[in-house]
């Protein structure tokens, strides 16, 4: 393994290039590239990479970036792109179309606040706005988690039991523009890990099917239910992909949820992306001070594995959710899922904390304050907004 210091964006670019190159003996790779802060370095890296069999097309919009991915996937190639914020919003129609066409595209989403107002800092509201699209969604907490998860995402998305596209999200700037030491695996290991991409329903002149044409309600309902069943097969496919990852690369990326100290914890906080790492600092310190608190790093948001989350939370009766996103008129989006997951547990107090909206720095002190609130709170209230210093 080559351990190197690099930004999150370059790590993501390298992982995509390795995955694309791993398909050179099959139909190669392709994708669309369009810049938007803070993901731009990813597509710059891809445009500069010399693929053995692949082409990254510099298009005129995110909408077309996803359209090129769809065409490439329909022609049997491994397809990928990257975007952020308003770019994802502009792409949305084709994001849905790619999923409904069951095309195993992988997209990096560098999380950034949706505007207006114009704000380039991190907020997960951009990719979470795509939660109702038929895509897997992974949230990563570090450079290494990002690289590993990108490779895992291709393997799961392209598996015949799944055949759905996948988003791999990371925090804008906090990960995309900071450097950490990362193990970038050599091409031969990625070749071994990723089987040739085979899109079984790709367009073929010898079998001239029409994809995406008119269907009646019954056929449409069947198609939607097939997507739901494919989502339900993700846990077994992901588990296999993680096992195989460990065999090939010698380390095991986190799965859907990573529970820490929840076995005996009375209170548990849940967070995704780099907030989970800050949360880990707080929980570790509190454990040393003898407090029975725990945490869950939420990594897989779609599908949302409710039983896996219940298992991860354990016996805790106080559960707080850190949401760096906000659904106006409701609350944090992770909280909605957590509350639905725990609806059979009236003994559990579930409280939402909307925090770091628009990229505010969620420091250990901020999380300390949230944990203090959760530990003494008598009953759950509407989502609490935690203001942070800019």
């Amino acid at each position, binding site marked *: 393994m080559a351990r190197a210091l690099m930004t999150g964006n370059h790590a993501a670019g390298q992982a995509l290039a390795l995955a694309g190159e791993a398909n050179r003996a099959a*139909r*190669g790779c*392709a994708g*669309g590239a369009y810049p938007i802060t803070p993901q731009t370095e990813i597509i710059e890296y891809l445009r500069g990479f010399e693929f053995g*069999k*692949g*082409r990254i*097309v*510099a*298009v*005129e*919009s995110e*909408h*077309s*970036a996803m*359209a*090129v*991915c*769809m*065409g*490439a*996937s*329909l*022609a*049997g*190639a491994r*397809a990928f792109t990257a975007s952020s914020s308003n770019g994802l919003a502009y792409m949305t*129609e*084709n994001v849905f*179309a790619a999923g409904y066409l069951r095309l195993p595209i992988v997209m990096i989403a560098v999380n950034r606040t949706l505007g207006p107002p114009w704000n380039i800092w991190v907020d997960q509201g951009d990719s979470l706005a795509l939660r109702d699209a038929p895509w897997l969604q992974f949230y990563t907490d570090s450079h290494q988690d990002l690289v590993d998860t990108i490779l895992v995402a291709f393997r799961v998305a392209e598996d015949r039991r799944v055949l759905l596209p996948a988003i791999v999200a990371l925090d804008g700037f906090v990960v995309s523009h900071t450097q950490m030491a990362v193990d970038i695996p050599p091409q031969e290991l990625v070749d071994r890990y990723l089987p040739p991409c085979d899109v079984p329903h790709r*367009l*073929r*002149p010898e*079998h*001239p*099917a*029409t*994809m*995406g*044409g*008119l*269907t*009646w309600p019954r*056929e449409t309902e069947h198609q939607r239910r097939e997507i739901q069943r494919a989502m339900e097969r993700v846990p077994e496919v992901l588990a296999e992909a993680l096992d195989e990852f460990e065999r090939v690369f010698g380390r095991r990326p986190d799965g859907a949820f990573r529970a820490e100290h929840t076995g005996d914890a009375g209170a548990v906080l849940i967070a995704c992306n780099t907030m989970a790492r800050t949360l880990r600092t707080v929980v570790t310190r509190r454990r040393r001070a003898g407090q029975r608190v725990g945490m869950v790093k939420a990594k897989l948001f779609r599908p949302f594995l409710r039983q896996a989350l219940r298992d991860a939370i354990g016996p805790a009766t106080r559960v707080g959710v850190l949401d760096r996103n906000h659904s106006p008129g409701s609350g944090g989006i992770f909280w909605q899922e957590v509350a639905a997951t725990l609806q059979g547990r009236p003994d559990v107090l579930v409280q939402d904390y909307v925090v770091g909206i628009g990229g505010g720095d969620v420091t250990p002190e901020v999380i300390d304050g949230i944990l203090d609130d959760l530990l003494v709170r008598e009953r759950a209230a509407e989502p609490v907004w935690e203001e942070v210093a800019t």
Partner: protein
Amino acid sequence: MTAVAPQPNRVSQECIMRPGNTNCAGCGMSIGLQLLAQALEGERPYLAIPACCGIVTAGAFPTSAYASPTIATTFASSAAVATGISAVLRQNGDESPVICWTGDGGTYDIGVAALSAAAERNEDVIYICYDNEIYGNTGGQRSSATPAGVATTTTPHGKTERKKDMMAIMAAHRIPYAATLSVAHRGDFLRKIRHARATRGFRFLLMLSPCPTGWKSEPAESVELIRAAVGCGLFPLYEVFDGLRYRINDRPDGTPVEEYVSRQRRYTSAQIDPAVVRARVAEQWRCLEALATAFPAD
């Protein structure tokens, strides 16, 4: 659901649009698909078709009227989806034609950014617009291809703005080949498709497509209407090579514009002035002749 077996067809070897589709009588797009198949002589192109009557042609799952591999793209995306298909075919040594088959809404309006970008990149794609000058599939609303004066459901008193000159826009991209197609000029139509097929890079073909439903015309007169449109000079037949060399294929033969406009209630209901149409036709020809003289293809 019972799948209906396709009927034996004389030209089944050349067919792209199979018999048994539900297109309107007198539909220019249907004629265009048949001519396209004849020109390609049995080759099955990859088709990227956005939201338009062209994808309704396929019919309902699990049957399809298309004998070619076809993707129904989102409205704005046919040129970008075709880019992805073409990129992957070419890197695998497959030279099969990739064709966008689109209406004017998907070309002049919502798809113009993706189209312009694919043309600027000179993608190895054939883009064919069947231009019926309205959003036909949604019942006949104005597009930027609708000529001035025409009544549509969203311009009930006649459109006040002029038709966008898409050929000029595409020629300005300096693409290898751009040409207009008439369903009333079969030989010219087939020759142009074959030239497009033999050319590499981005090729743009614009076909004036009669739509009896939207034009309020007689289905049986569709081909004659297009002959009149060419004859009166309203729809010039010409080719542009590399965006800079012009060849005019046919010149006005003295057919009065009334021969064209008076047979369509979309014109007559708005009571447009044929003198205005004549003036614009003359202006268009001055421009085209000047280009063909200054930048001749031959």
